[in-house]
């Protein structure tokens, strides 16, 4: 008898009205997908050739957990290619050839088949260089990733959308126009929307490909601050052209030159006491 009374009671509860929801993060919002046990991202003897050009030469890196890793180096040194190898977006280039290993935990990203790729890419989010919302409403932009990974139900998605928009500080700005097109937002807002979109599928890693370079200084600062805040829960790999930005936020630095990793290590260590001659020259503005 008591069951018959309590069941309608539970289902009658309007979960969206639960206050204050930020104190109690609903289980459905950030535990939608199984977590990886081992999330170490490493490369072993990674070589990439596009046609006859040798883009990456014997790259061995290990991305530290819950830190901001900045990949620095002059233009054309393979920073972006390395970043895009982590989620296999390099595949879209004609004539690309990958040798070596990129491992996420026990899984080899280079050898992953189409089915594993989807799950791997969910675990490794990307924040693009130019803000690029999907051609749909603000709400659908966040919900898109969840939907393709099988999260359904309006109530659940409402909570997810609100949670991640709040996480990037966009909720108060857009809560009245969630169903209006995302292209109406400003550049900085669009970039935060892209960030929220990546976060909504619960990645372990965030790849940022010069994600602040197309933004105005204030929006750029907002996004940068967000990355610093987010490193508590995510490992962030960032390609940057601005050395100052790397000095501000990096915990770990990988310096690349002509497709090779010249030096990597703790940011303070590399910036204050570079071991390699090339690194010294680059840090002093000798190579650009």
């Amino acid at each position, binding site marked *: 008898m008591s069951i018959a009374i309590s069941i309608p009671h539970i289902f009658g509860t309007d979960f969206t009205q639960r206050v204050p929801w930020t104190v109690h993060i609903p289980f459905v919002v950030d535990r939608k997908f199984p977590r990886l046990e081992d999330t170490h991202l490493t490369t072993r003897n990674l070589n990439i050739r596009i046609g006859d050009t040798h883009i990456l030469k014997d790259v061995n890196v290990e991305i530290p957990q819950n830190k901001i890793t900045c990949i620095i180096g002059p233009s054309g040194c393979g920073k972006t290619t390395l970043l895009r190898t982590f*989620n296999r*977006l390099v*595949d*879209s*280039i*004609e004539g690309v050839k990958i040798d070596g290993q990129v491992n996420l935990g026990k899984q080899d990203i280079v050898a992953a088949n*189409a089915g594993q*790729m*989807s*799950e*791997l*890419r*969910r675990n*490794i*989010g*990307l924040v*693009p260089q*130019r803000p*690029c*919302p*999907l*051609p*749909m*409403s603000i709400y659908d932009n966040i919900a*898109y*990733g969840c939907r*393709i*990974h099988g999260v359904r139900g309006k109530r659940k998605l409402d909570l997810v959308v609100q949670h991640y928009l709040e996480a990037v500080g966009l909720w108060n700005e857009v809560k009245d126009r969630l169903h209006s*097109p*995302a*292209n109406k937002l400003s550049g900085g807002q669009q970039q935060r929307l*892209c960030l929220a*979109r*990546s976060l909504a*599928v619960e990645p372990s890693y965030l*790849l940022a490909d010069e994600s602040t370079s197309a933004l105005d200084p204030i929006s750029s600062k907002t996004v940068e601050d967000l990355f610093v805040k987010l490193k508590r829960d995510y490992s962030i790999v960032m390609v940057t052209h601005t050395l100052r930005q790397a000095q501000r936020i990096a915990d770990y630095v990988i310096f690349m030159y002509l497709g090779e990793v010249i030096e990597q290590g703790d940011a303070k260590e590399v910036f204050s006491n570079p071991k390699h001659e090339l690194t010294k020259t680059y840090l002093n503005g000798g190579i650009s």
Partner: protein
Amino acid sequence: MKRAIVIEKIWKALMYASIALVLFFVVSVIWSVFRRGLPVLSWEMVSSLPGGGFYIGKEGGFLNAIVGSIYIVGGATVLGLLVSIPVVFYLNVYLKPHPKLGVVARLAYDILFGIPSIVYGAFGFTIMIFFGLRTSLLGGIIVVTLLIIPIFIRSMDEVAKTIPQDILEAGYSLGSTRLETITVVVRQIAPAIATATLLGIGRAIGDAAGVMFTAGFSDSIPTSLTQQTASLPLSVFFQLSAPQLEVQDRAYAAAVVLTAIVLILSLSGRFIMNRFSRNKI
């Protein structure tokens, strides 16, 4: 005055002249059709089937042709979109890393685009004879579909080529497969789909040669896919070739209906397009 400014004035005048020329043709075509057709056009004409002596000037209307045209074009548009949206998606998403295959495919439908509709008609006719089929609504729909698929693909592809790679990559990096990005691609090219549909309908509804051998002609409204059906262009053609002046006037009335349908379609298309393009990046 400076030489460059004089030259610019001359070119500007030429541009105005060509715009005026185009507008003149638009207005004069509509005017000449409506001048002869409108006085004859009556409710009876668009709402009733041809009577016994309709083609020698007796009572009746050409509802058979209006409905027949709508059946043929409606069926062909649906079939055409079902074929061409996947083609455009394949060309622009799956073939993107292999552009050489795309060149061959695009060349193929460019050739199809240039084939005159009478050739499609003859082709359809040959196939139908081979299978022992009679002229029918289905035959008309299939031939008109063949006719408009290249139009659909060509106009959608032009827009789909400009889809930013960033959008596709955003989809991939969230874990979507290439097939799952179709929701993104379709939203992005929605305005192009609307335009292509209208262009295709405009071309299809006015096409006489394709349906002449394949759909046939009939004085009644078809009730199944295997029956013959009339169409507006053929109705215009048959009445215009009659010797009686009043029958020729009725041809103009049918042409008025045809023109009005096309005008309404393209105007409503403008409105629909604006609505579709609100999400476009």
